[in-house]
């Protein structure tokens, strides 16, 4: 028994065991501070579905050796453009959602190619550059949201009559279009967004399948040893661009899925910090800076979103103060810090 336990901990890794136990203890403690367990589970599941694809977007770039995609906001911006354009044309329901995706993906491909070419020039410093690509693209879009000629009254500032608002509701367009598909409601509090899970699962399957193709294998090899790949006739730069494009496209899809569940499109500074929770989640899931699997994505997202849901509610009730935001920041950045220092160790 003891042996088995040891083997399990070895397999799962200490961080996951500790965080898992912590999460479990939060669920156990919840009823005592009058936090409903079923509502908490429901919250965790919804957040898991919302963030899953954004975390999945980390995988291709990790596999190709481009590191963690701190430039996620770039892909998110493509998704935002798709979403607002779809609303501009007044498209609703499945059509609206599909149109948002249909417009976001080509944009994300274009952005991804440019971003990938940039990263090829800064090999070794990808993560640093990526962070600033993300930040500066958000800042640039802050101007563009004001200047782009969108006219739908649901989206523009009420008083000036031009420029997009910071928060745009998707209600009446494609709110919960995925979440409500085959969704299950148990009692008044527990809600399972089946459709969103199915979509996330489908995306994971596509990613898994891609990694099992010839190109996907080549991409993994590039991440593992670029010199080896080059000597085997692989165009290393091309593989890296492909991975960046995939990552950017997944980010664009991910944010649209996020919005249909959340109910709002957040512009301007909204995407600014979006990369960090995704990075923290995949690292927490057991991925390293150059190896990641679908399992890492699922476990990481579940644990991380679980902690983010539970810590504020339970701890706030315990301490009788509102520190939810502080705790979130400490947990997510602490996770990133932990994982990045571990990478240095692994390199020896």
């Amino acid at each position, binding site marked *: 028994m003891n042996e088995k336990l040891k083997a399990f901990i070895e397999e799962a890794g200490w961080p996951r065991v500790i965080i898992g136990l912590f999460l479990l203890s939060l669920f156990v403690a919840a009823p005592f501070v009058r936090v409903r367990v079923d509502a908490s589970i429901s919250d965790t599941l919804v957040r898991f579905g919302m963030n899953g694809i954004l975390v999945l977007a980390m995988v291709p770039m990790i596999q190709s050796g481009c590191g963690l995609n701190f430039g996620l906001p770039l892909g998110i911006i493509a998704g935002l453009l798709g979403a607002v354009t779809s609303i501009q044309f007044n498209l609703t329901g499945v059509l609206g959602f599909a149109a948002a995706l249909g417009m976001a993906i080509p944009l994300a491909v274009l952005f991804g190619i440019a971003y990938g070419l940039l990263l090829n020039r800064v090999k070794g410093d990808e993560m640093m550059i990526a962070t600033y690509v993300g930040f500066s693209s958000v800042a640039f879009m802050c101007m563009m949201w004001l200047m782009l000629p969108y006219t739908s009254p649901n989206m523009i500032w009420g008083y000036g009559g031009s420029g997009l608002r910071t928060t745009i509701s998707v209600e009446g367009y494609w709110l919960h279009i995925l979440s409500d598909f085959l969704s299950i409601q148990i009692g008044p509090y527990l809600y399972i967004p089946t459709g969103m899970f199915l979509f996330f699962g489908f995306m994971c399957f596509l990613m898994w*399948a891609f990694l*099992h*193709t*010839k*190109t*996907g*294998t*080549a991409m*993994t*090899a590039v991440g*593992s*040893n670029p*010199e*080896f790949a*080059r*000597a*085997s*006739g*692989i*165009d290393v730069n091309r593989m890296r661009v492909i991975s960046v494009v995939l990552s950017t496209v997944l980010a664009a899809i991910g944010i649209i899925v996020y919005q249909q569940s959340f109910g709002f499109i957040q512009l301007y500074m909204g995407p600014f910090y979006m990369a960090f929770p995704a990075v923290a989640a995949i690292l927490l899931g057991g991925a390293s800076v*150059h*190896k990641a699997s679908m399992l890492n994505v699922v476990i990481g997202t579940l644990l991380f979103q679980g902690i983010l849901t539970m810590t504020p509610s339970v701890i706030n009730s315990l301490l009788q103060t509102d520190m939810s935001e502080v705790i979130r920041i400490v947990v997510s950045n602490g996770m990133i810090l932990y994982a990045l220092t571990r990478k240095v160790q692994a390199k020896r």
Partner: protein
Amino acid sequence: METTPLLRMEHIGKEYFGNRVLSDVSFSLEKGQILGLVGENGAGKSTLMNILFGMPVISQTGGFEGKILLDGKEVRFQDPLDALDAGIGYVHQEFSLIPGFTATENILLNRESTKYNLLVEVFGNRLETLDRPHMRERAKKAISALGVDLDPEMVVTEMPVGHRQFTEIAREIDRENMKLLVLDEPTAVLAESEAQVLLDAMRKLSAQGIAMIFISHRLQEVMDVCDKILVLRDGRVIQEAKTHETSVRQIAGWMVGRKMEETAEARPAERSLGAPLLKVEHLWVDMPGETVRDVSFEVRQGEIFGIGGLAGQGKLGIGNGIMGLYPAGGKVFLGDKPIYLNDPRFSLSAGMAFVSEDRRGVGLLLEEPIEWNIVFTAMQTQDAFTKSLFGGLVKWRDDRAIAAVAKEYIEALEIRCVSGRQRAIELSGGNQQKVCLAKAFAVKPKLLFVAEPTRGIDVGAKRLVLDTLRRYNREYGTTIVMTSSELEELRSVCDRIAIVDEGRISGILPPTAPVEEFGLLMLGTTRNGNGNGFSEADRTVFHNE
């Protein structure tokens, strides 16, 4: 005249982690004498000098045996600074100069002439003003002692390499008590005329009573300038000789000659080889540290062609260049088909494969399973081990076929591992090398380049690797071009051996040629021509195929 010698090293021995690199080396050096220290790469020259200078690496690895006597007194330097204080200078192979400083500043670094100023009262001597005119005088004096024409105000970055080398030497002789100077391959980077000036300068210094130890691969220079010569091989003194009593040919023989019986073993009778398969014309390759300048040769179908030579002369660049891993130019034909250089994919698709000398850096995916390592190149260049789905739109990795073929190679090459899923990083060096070979064989190449196949692996694994190469050559008719630093290894496997020196092929010999002839080609004496006991007639023989 019976005086105590300036330097005596007695019975010096050294082990690195149970690996003996020096044993019982003794020699002595008089004032003003020049000693030539020669030997192949790894013969123990650098270790000997490290011991003399008390380099930290020696004491960190368990010290050394024997005694060093300087002016009759035993010395044991704790670090190189002690050696400098005792009057021993070292001119490094790589320049240790500050690029943005002038010659004067470099020569007098940390020994500058200084003047008093007020700040000294507050902050101490470190803030004295530099006395530039005086420094200039001193630098000029050191430079003129060398007898060269060098502007003391020139910045190092603007100097030709020869001048940099002189700046380094001038820095050493500026020290007041300089008695002994060690020059580690000072002429390696110099053109012939520059080297000549350096040799003159050495003679001048020797006339002033400074003793020197001169390490060089250019035997002719050693013959020209040294009073006596010490030949090291495998950590032992093979011969100590007065220069005028020996010849370049004899020294070369001492350097490379090993037990001859090993080579003679099981050499097959004349083999019948096919038509020329690989034709290389005027190839140049820009591989850092292994530059190939102008190489032409032909390899025939079914042949095992060896490429040898000293480290850094360009032998490794040839395979890397033809496989497109480093910028290259010239003409290469495989059969009748021209090979586009600088495109690894093209070279691979044309039917060539490469086992890199840099096993861990280029040869393996250390973090991935053995299976992947073996099939990867074949999969990517020939679509082997893939299944086409959706009418060829998707090329799916066929994991089952991969496992099967990996198992085959693991058995055939006796790769010791738990399973094909084990990560390559967990294997020993010899088994990793076998994985690299399996990777190349999986491509089913017409022509296989193998670079340093036995570097860093143990004796048993060496034998297996060489046998495997021989077997693939005999059974499948794979033509092999094998590059190796170990001459004996080449002589035991190859049909012909080309020796590369300074980026050019200095000669192609049959493996049965006497070992001194290989030695002479490696040391580039043929080019300089007038080597002792090495006539014009000999040279033409070597260029016969």
